[in-house]
């Protein structure tokens, strides 16, 4: 029941928002996301009291072909739902004090997106899962397209076609599994307990892998990502990078590995190598970027590459590290893009070269920006550190050389992040008569909450590990 409530609050909010206008829309959206966050917290408490037993709900939707409304929340799903519902209020709040055209539609789409995301994370029937997966694409397409900046038409269409092409491959995989499964069902339990014959596992693996690799994105399927992040409105970018790409990494754990275990084992080395190449490649490209948003986009590719590599190591620490890092990366990347937005809001520029000396004008902003930068270069005591160490250890267990190679991300990450910070925030101002007011109230709330989360999960990550351990162990068996 709780999972259904968590699913339908955003949908209800999304419909109600269409009736509001102007500034009320922002407040209504914020109120609903906060209520949703409260409900999530309550669900988490209940979940803990029940000893981490999954919430399970099954209802018949269509008899022939058999499709069940099967929703379930184990530790992994719970963590992803927490991530989604934790970030949404912050994303909504970051739009206060900014000019947004037709805010009621904008926020309505955003909450529709939340509905779809929660749906993806709790669906346990392949068909329902696919529907939510596709549904998530529609609002984000319109958010990026209608409210985006220059070049948006080409960029967003490329994004849409790219990801939909991947989804159709996955659909083909699902249809194939459906025709082959013993009682014609796509239920997660049935699919995982009756894996398809080894002769088919290879190509089914690649169908699903490419679909997820496009969404994550893993190199070489990443070409849609930097441009889309660049041209989408900041809140769209936050949704995309903070939550939506976690759909891909989550699906690797939830669907790809349990459904085609033999295929995964066979192609593990190739997949992990692709991921690690992506980590290093994206880090090097990030060093050369002069556009803030693009720099963060490439750093995001590097981080999720490491997360995916950890997942494909198929070790306990790799998997758990990936989940910790998904949460951490979600929080940090939203913070980074928000900082970029604050800079753009004051200077109308994302260009690293033209900025400088902001610290003198806005010391509070400089402090919190620093905290987020340090967290994303994985300084000890921040949330980035715990996940990254576990991930690297997982990859190291798989292959020592790959582990060492992936470890470069820490050095390269420090290079591009700290260089960026130095050029943008320190030194003398390069702009004549720059007017850079310090943080507004909503910006303070967002950045301080992100800062608190960075330290809390960095110093005390045990609850996350406890939450996910039973589910991961079950998967690895």
């Amino acid at each position: 029941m709780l999972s259904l409530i968590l699913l339908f609050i955003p949908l209800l909010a999304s419909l109600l928002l269409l009736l509001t206008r102007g500034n009320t829309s922002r407040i209504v959206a914020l109120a609903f996301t906060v209520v949703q966050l409260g409900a999530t917290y309550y669900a988490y408490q209940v979940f803990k009291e029940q000893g981490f037993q999954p919430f399970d709900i099954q209802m018949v939707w269509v008899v022939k072909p058999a499709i069940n409304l099967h929703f379930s929340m184990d530790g992994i799903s719970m963590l992803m739902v927490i991530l989604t519902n934790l970030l949404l209020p912050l994303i909504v709040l970051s739009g206060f004090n900014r000019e947004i055209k037709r805010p009621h539609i904008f926020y309505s789409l955003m909450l529709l997106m939340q509905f779809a995301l929660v749906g993806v994370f709790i669906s346990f029937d392949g068909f329902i899962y696919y529907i939510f997966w596709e549904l998530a694409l529609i609002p984000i397409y319109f958010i990026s397209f209608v409210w985006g900046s220059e070049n948006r038409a080409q960029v967003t269409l490329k994004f849409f076609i790219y990801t939909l092409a991947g989804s159709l491959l996955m659909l083909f995989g699902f249809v194939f599994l459906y025709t082959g499964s013993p009682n014609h069902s796509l239920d997660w339990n049935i699919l995982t307990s009756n894996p398809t014959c080894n002769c088919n596992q290879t190509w089914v693996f690649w169908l699903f892998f490419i679909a997820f690799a496009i969404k994550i994105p893993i190199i070489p399927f990443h070409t849609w990502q930097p441009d889309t992040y660049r041209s989408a409105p900041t809140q769209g970018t936050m949704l995309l990078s903070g939550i939506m790409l976690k759909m891909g990494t989550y699906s690797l754990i939830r669907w790809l590995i349990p459904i085609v275990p033999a295929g995964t084992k066979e192609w593990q080395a190739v997949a992990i190598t692709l991921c690690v190449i992506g980590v290093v490649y994206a880090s090097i490209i990030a060093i050369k970027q002069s556009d803030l948003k693009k720099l963060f986009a490439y750093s995001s590719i590097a981080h999720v590459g490491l997360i995916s590599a950890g997942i494909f190591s198929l070790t306990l620490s790799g998997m758990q590290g990936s989940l910790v890092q998904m949460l951490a990366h979600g929080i940090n990347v939203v913070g980074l893009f928000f900082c970029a937005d604050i800079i753009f809001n004051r200077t109308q520029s994302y260009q690293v070269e033209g900025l400088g000396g902001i610290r003198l004008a806005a010391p509070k902003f400089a402090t919190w920006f620093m905290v987020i930068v340090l967290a994303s270069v994985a300084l000890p005591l921040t949330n980035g550190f715990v996940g990254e160490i576990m991930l690297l250890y997982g990859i190291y267990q798989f292959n020592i050389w790959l582990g060492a190679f992936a470890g470069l991300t820490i050095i390269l990450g420090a290079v591009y992040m700290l260089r960026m910070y130095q050029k943008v925030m320190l030194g003398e101002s390069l702009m004549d008569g720059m007017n850079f007011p310090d943080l507004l109230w909503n910006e303070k709330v967002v950045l301080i909450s992100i800062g608190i989360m960075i330290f809390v999960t960095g110093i005390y990550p045990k609850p996350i590990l406890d939450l996910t351990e039973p589910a991961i162990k079950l998967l690895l068996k």
Partner: protein
Amino acid sequence: MNTLIFTSLLGFFCMVAEILNLRKLIGPVLVLGLALIFGLNQQDWNMNQTFYGMLQVDNFSVAFGSLAIFITLLVFILSSEYYADQEHHISDYMTILCFVLVGALMMFSFSNLTMLFLGIETLSIALYIMAGSKRFDKRSNEAGFKYFLMGAFASGFLLFGIALVFGSTGSFDIQKIAEYPILNSQNISPLYYTGIVLIIFAMLFKVSAAPFHFWAPDVYEGAPVLITAYMSTLVKVAAFAAFYKLVSAVFVYSTPHFEFVLNIAAILTLAVGNLMALSQTNFKRLLAYSGISHAGYLMLIILSSKSQPVAALLYYLLGYSVSTIAAFAVAMPVFKAANSENIDAFNGLGTKKPVLAAALSIAMLGLAGIPPFMGFFGKYFIFTEALQNGFFITTIVAIVGSMIGIYYYFKVILAMYGQPANEVKVETTFNYNLVLWVCLAISLALGLYPAPIVNLF
């Protein structure tokens, strides 16, 4: 049978109304009458009657008949608005439209090849006239003439095929024809095969499948927009239902020979429809090619007729029809205001009329097959059926086709939201909005809960 009789009477009333000076009554009587006929049609559910070995009213004909009547009802509601400024012709137009429906109803319930031929001809001849009904417009004349010439050719094929089948089997009755290859499995006459191939060619023409599709874009483009809406939905429903009935009832015992022909046609249709749609700038041509590509997906159902996928066929056709009619219900007022039928007539509709733009976006998403709309489930059912029957490569072509499809359906959405608005003021009326929202509600409701249709068969 009652359905057929009362629909004909309705058409007859429209004709007489002109003489009796009851022109004002035509609109309300038609809508009311069709609604009654729709109800009457439901009475035949589970009745299974045969009339003199000519017509057979069973659940198949009732289901598709209801769909056809529903489409006609929507088109009639649109037509009272569309023909508002040419009232002196209304009785002619309405009569002819009624007889299109009569033809379609015959095509669903034939149990004798002569009735099939009569049904197709009644439907086609009425549409030849309607395609050319804008008398002073060159394109409309071209459309009518082209449709007539090509259609006459196809009818010739059909008739010749029926004659050859009759020559070899000695009967027009579909059951007897179906039994023929089983009873005479040793010496099947070559006339029989030739006849069936000719019939298949004629049906491929009617459903606008490649390589017999060339008429569709020109005719769709030239015909008045209301007629295009009617043609692209009702004709597709009628032709595919009849085609399915033919294949499943008559040819199923001799499929191995024809599977190959149909398979090649399906792949060609998918490729041609999707690839040619990419470069279109005229909205009606775009929908024509999209219709061809949808014919390609539906061909997969015809191919898998061994496993009786009637529900999938009905579901897909309903989903396709409501999305297409919704698209036209937005396009009609826009075209009228902009005096152009190109995609750029929609430029900036997103800022001028956000609700209309959202509606057209939903229709386009439905056609592209994106959940939660009916188009998605329809495609899913089709792919499953095709895979279960082992049409592996054709399914892959169909999936690639749907990827390409996104691009051209999104061209319309891009125009609405991405282009600066033009000066033209668009005004819609109650009738357009009614049809539009009924269609979208169906597309969403049955997309979320397909059981009512899927469990029919």
